[in-house]
């Protein structure tokens, strides 16, 4: 029963992926870059498309949506995963709209498109230089030395704002104070249709032992230590996101994702 084997194998792979996500987020597992995460997600989705049993576009979409919900629930801060799922859903819709032929033809086409997506992705990742800047004293250096500030980000939100690494907001404010342009480099898979209103899901915290080590002694019990990972950077501080103004992001978003898929 090769079908059953494939199914269990597929299920096994999905479970592995979920476990990896959960571990990766806590900081103890191997840290993965967003690009790698996106690639892994795409491979998994391709496998699902190839090996799962489905008969129509709607079925496939339902399967992928179901799996997508599970994956995003495993690690909410990894928006890349959710973005890839939404992208694939959009591709399926497009394919459905462009062809009127049967299931198998569709399947092949979807495979084609997903392959193309994977390639596209790898090109993007290679060509994108994501730079990180240290910022403990950056403020006044901007007054004279710098002509531009280039930063990376974890996610680009739907309003053009960023969810970036801690400290980026200070950098952005300093850049605005010294009238230095702030440029964000981010590949397409980081564009997320989320808005920054969800206070409780926006922030993620890691263990504060990096900030105040356990060797600090007794005072640990009397002190609150916070170690947030992300910073919200409002779109007013940003000059450019990879060639587009922040106010243009919503347009890009509509090309990549379908509005119905915004909530998985």
């Amino acid at each position, binding site marked *: 029963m090769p079908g059953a084997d494939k199914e269990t194998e597929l299920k096994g792979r999905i479970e592995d992926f979920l476990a990896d996500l959960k571990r990766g987020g806590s900081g103890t597992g191997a840290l993965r870059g967003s690009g790698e995460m996106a690639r892994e997600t795409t491979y998994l989705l391709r496998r699902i498309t190839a090996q799962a049993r489905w008969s129509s576009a709607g079925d496939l979409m339902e399967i992928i949506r179901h799996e997508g919900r599970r994956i995003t629930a495993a690690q909410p801060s990894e928006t890349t995963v959710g973005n890839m799922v939404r992208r694939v859903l959009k591709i399926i819709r497009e394919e459905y709209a462009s062809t009127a032929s049967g299931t198998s033809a569709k399947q092949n086409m979807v495979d084609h498109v997903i392959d193309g997506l994977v390639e596209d992705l790898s090109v993007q990742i290679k060509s994108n230089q994501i730079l990180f800047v240290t910022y403990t004293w950056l403020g006044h250096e901007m007054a004279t030395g710098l002509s531009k500030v280039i930063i990376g980000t974890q996610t680009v939100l739907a309003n053009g704002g960023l969810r970036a690494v801690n400290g980026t907001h200070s950098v952005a404010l300093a850049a605005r104070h010294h009238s230095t342009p702030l440029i964000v480099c981010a590949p397409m898979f980081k564009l997320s249709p989320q808005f920054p209103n969800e206070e409780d899901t926006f922030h993620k915290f890691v263990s504060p032992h990096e900030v105040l080590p356990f060797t600090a002694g007794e005072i640990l019990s009397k*002190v609150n*230590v916070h170690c947030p990972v992300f910073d919200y950077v409002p779109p007013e501080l940003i000059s450019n996101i990879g060639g587009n103004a922040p106010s243009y992001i919503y347009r890009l978003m509509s090309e990549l994702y379908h509005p119905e898929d915004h909530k998985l």
Partner: protein
Amino acid sequence: RDSSVNVVQLLLARLDNGVVWLHSDGPEKKYEIRRAKNDGKELTKEEKQRLRKEKKQQKKQKDEKGTSERAKEKKHVAPSQPVATQPPTQKAHTVLPASAPIPVPASGAPSHSSPAPSPADKPAKSRAELKAERRARQEADRASKQQSCSSSSKTKAPPSELNPVVKRLPEHVQVDDPAVVKRLAKKLERQQIPLRSDYGYKVSLFSHLHQYSRKAPLTQQLSIPSTVIHPSIVRLGLQYSQGIVVGSNARSVALLHAFKQVIRDYTTPPNEELARDLVNKLKPYISFLNQCRPLSASMGNAIKYIKKEISNIPSQFKEEEAKTKLLTCIDRYINENVVLAAKAISKYAIEKISDGDVILVYGCSSLVNHILCEAYDKSRKFRVIIVDSRPRLEGREALRRLVKQGISCTYVLISALSYVLPEVSKVFLGAHALLANGYVMSRVGTSQIALVARTFNVPVLVCCETYKFCERVQTDSFVSNELDDPDDLMVTRKGKTQLENWHDVSSLGLLNLVYDVTPPDFVDLVITDLGMIPCTSVPVVLRVKNLDHSMPVWMLERGFRHKVSPCLILHAMLHRL
């Protein structure tokens, strides 16, 4: 100028043919001296011409006889010894008239070689000739003073502080200028202090500053026991360079205590005045400390105060009296400017702290910690958020002190600033110095906090004692700063040090700044011991303070002294203003 001429006259009268002049008729001598005073007015035409000729000849001889003058000096010192037993420092003056070259009229020469010329010689010299002689000697004196190096102690003309002082860039901010570096090296060599060498690649924007390594303290190049530097100063220098004593107040107080020990162990050498000699003794110590770690603004002000106090000691004081007076002065300075100022500032600051406040502090400022502890003792209910930054991690010290007191604290790194600021009601910052244009110089990162706090509309209060106000003007952090050891930036995580071989990477420079300046528009209020002032009023306070310091010079000469604390005077002046 008149007074310096007088002094030179008197000395010359004493040393050169002193016996003759002293034995001469009283009125004669007085007449001479009075005429010497009116020298400039009474010279006749012929005398002026002769003087001009003599000056020209002097100049020629000066150029020709470089070293041969020294030989002549040595020759002439021997015969003039029986005239007066000269202390070594005044050898210069015996030497000078001797080295006044041949153009001094022949009447001068025989008087040098024969120690006790007969009184019969004197009437032979016409008054005009004597005057010309005197004039020529003065010129020679002045000429060779310019020539010779400053090692001979000069007679101190009363300081003319009312004249404008030419301000030059301090030497520690001109490291990329080779002439300045050479001058500094020569000065240190003269004072027998080793020169500390720079370490590592310096980022081009900061190549005009020193960058030292903590692993190579200056004391390794000193011989122990050092004869030039007092041991408590050596210890202090080491404490500074290794980061054992940090913080503006701590460094100044430690400096003053070390100086107290120096004063206690000091004995005036024979034929020296305590007022002059002690100041000269302190100069190499200050150079040494500067080499260990660049002096802070508060230390600079403290040193100025001590030097002023020492030079204002009346010469009739015995050594013990003078020493006790100096020790009490120093104690009073510390008490007024550090201890009492902290009390005054706390009193003002506590008015600004209300119940339910969330206060943000940065790093470890002794003054801010004091304020918070006092406020807690007065039963104000508040909690504190301590922001810290690498590589110094000074916030941990503040955390320890506040937690010990019982205050509820939260601790974050500066990268989490945007996360914590929405819940903060006030920001209290300490300062290293307040500059004359209203900028606040403080630990690096302070300007970032002020900037982000301004964005979130959180009030920023800076607490600073008035003795840290300094006359420098700076608008950015590049001009004058301190570069700390760049190796501090390396961090080892999970056994791996990423930047271990940063020396080998030619395009990489590590920059570890210590200070930065915050513009006054980010600061809402400055709390000083004189009251709560806006940041832009700092130059007003400085001006009033400066007036206060420059007054005593001429006032002293008439016997007035400010017996009241300067702070009270300033307060009164500000109220009147």
